[in-house]
């Protein structure tokens, strides 16, 4: 069974490429799907438009969210996830280059599970992903998104819940 993906919300093309390289290097046992702005993230998570096709765009097991995004900001996406989405309990890790205490506090207040600054090099990013995998995928139990539960109750077994 194909494991659920990590959803990266990131507008900087370099950072998307680097994340893909790092995910491969760190040998994470899951695909990485990237969306380019906050609105796209909301569309993806709510299954709008082409994202309705959940076989191709499955709900993520974990979201890596940048704060500074075009159209809808990361903080707004986070609030939307926690209050309005069908995936209110999904693990959201904020990964941004800001170190402003205000941003950190606001992110946690809005329901972030973690706040990390982007590493300055790919080697450091690979280390970070390995640590992330250990903590979130091996040591932690993750919630099953509400939307997925509905699926289970409705038309039988949905995609598996990872490891």
């Amino acid at each position, binding site marked *: 069974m194909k494991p659920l993906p990590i959803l990266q919300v990131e507008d*900087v093309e*370099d*950072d998307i490429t*680097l994340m893909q*390289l790092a995910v491969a290097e760190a040998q994470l046992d899951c695909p990485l799907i990237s969306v380019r702005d906050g609105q796209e993230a909301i569309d993806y998570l709510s299954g709008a438009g082409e994202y309705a096709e959940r076989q191709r765009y499955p709900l993520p097991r974990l979201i890596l969210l940048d704060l*500074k995004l075009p159209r809808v900001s990361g903080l707004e996406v986070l609030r939307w996830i926690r209050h309005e989405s069908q995936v209110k309990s999904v693990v959201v890790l904020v990964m*941004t*280059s*800001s*170190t*402003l205490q205000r*941003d950190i506090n606001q992110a946690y207040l809005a329901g972030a599970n973690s706040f990390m600054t*982007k*590493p*300055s*090099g*790919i*080697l450091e*990013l690979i280390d970070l992903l390995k640590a992330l995998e250990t903590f979130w995928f091996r040591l932690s139990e993750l919630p099953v998104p509400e939307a997925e539960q509905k699926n289970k109750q409705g038309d039988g077994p949905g995609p598996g819940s990872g490891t």
Partner: protein
Amino acid sequence: MISDSISKAGEGGPNPDEQGAAVTAQQNRAEQHAFTMLETIPDGVLNLDENCALQYVNPAAEAMLGRRSSELLGGKIWDEVPSARGGELEKQLRKVLSAGGRAEFHTKLGPWNKYYQILICECAEGAFVFLRDQTERMELTEALEEAEAWRRLIIENVKEFAIFSMDTEGRVTLWNPGAEKMFGYQPKEILGERTDAIFIPEDRAQGVPAKELAEAAEKGRAKDERWHMRKDGGRFFVSGAVVPLHGEDGRLRGFTKVARDVTDRKKLEDELQTARERLEEVVAERTAKLRETISELEVFSYSVSHDLRAPLRAMRSFSQILERNLAGKIDKRSSEFLRRIVTGAERMDRLIQDVLDYSRVTRAEVKLRTVDLEKMVEDIVNEQTALSEPRAEIQIARPLLKVRAHDASLSQCISNLVSNAVKFVAPGSRAKVRIWTERRGSCVRLWVEDEGVGIAHEYRERIFGMFERGADQSRYEGTGIGLAIVRKAVERMGGRVGVESEEGRGSKFWIELQEGAGD
């Protein structure tokens, strides 16, 4: 002679006549009573013969003259009573002795300068002189008269103060020239009238004149700090008070008001108040502008941190990948250039980080509290020791005193100083650092001493400046901002920073802050 008859009175003489004997006995008793009275009354009594020789002196007179009766009897009154001769006493005495009758007068007698009420009465063979000491009463009267004269002098001559009195109904009973000058009413215009006219119409309508008196009667004093009106309608600001006057029986007898024209002062105060309010407005306005600027700067810092660092991250990361992928496949020079791209990006990233730290230290809200230096220094030292290669030897001289500081700012300062101490050592040698505190008055000085390369004399002040570096740029990594951050942060915490150093002999950096409470 009265003294004879008095002295004989007590003996009583035999009398053949029974009736007469009874009468004599009665007389004797009366004389006995009179004698006892003379001997005990507080007034001095002297008896003189027609030649003014003293025939009798009672104990009160003895006490007044300060001499015994036995020394005085037979002597002339002029000789025995000082200052009697030539004075009022002699004049009056001669008059009574020659013309009979009586004389009553006041005079001063004797070197003791006492004031006497004197009564002279003629008697069978001379005269009686009665002396009553009135000194105390006269002194009291004189004092009262003096006080009254003073009071009048003050009330009549103090032109800067209006002083006036009122009866219990508020009608004017006294109106001094100061009041006349200040309010413009002559005494004859206002005596017997109420003082409503001197109040401004607004206050009159509110019943202020009566309220003021009622307050004074109730509380013992009422302040009069308000605008008043002159007869010509002009207004002026008064500072004064009304106090009630009570009789000896405690009943209210009236009021007195003392007031001063303080219009000039009031105007100044009002102007000052206006100026102060305007100043506050200006300050508020500027503060708002500053806040705006600061928040713009914050936005700027945010974009710097976000946008400038993103391309750097890309440069560094992709170079890292190239470096690894091409390892062994490219010549030494090319791989050296790749290395330089990586380190260049790293340096730039650190520079941006330091500038951001500096701007954070500059604008962060600094709330001081007592900081446990020992714990903070230990944490920093553990971190720095782990980072340095070869491992630095850092010695903390415990205990470290507590200081008043802002946690994050102080931590940043110490971290910068310790990392400098560890960094600036001769190549390959092991850093040796010693950290201790010392009390200096109400302050605590934290020292960070190293045995590193030291700082040349001419750099000592400059190293705390932005982008200033004391050491060889090529040999030691650094942005030249670390110490600027330290100085800025320490200054914002109300402290000082400094260094003692000699080139090649290590440096001793210090931070001085207020000592923390013992909690």
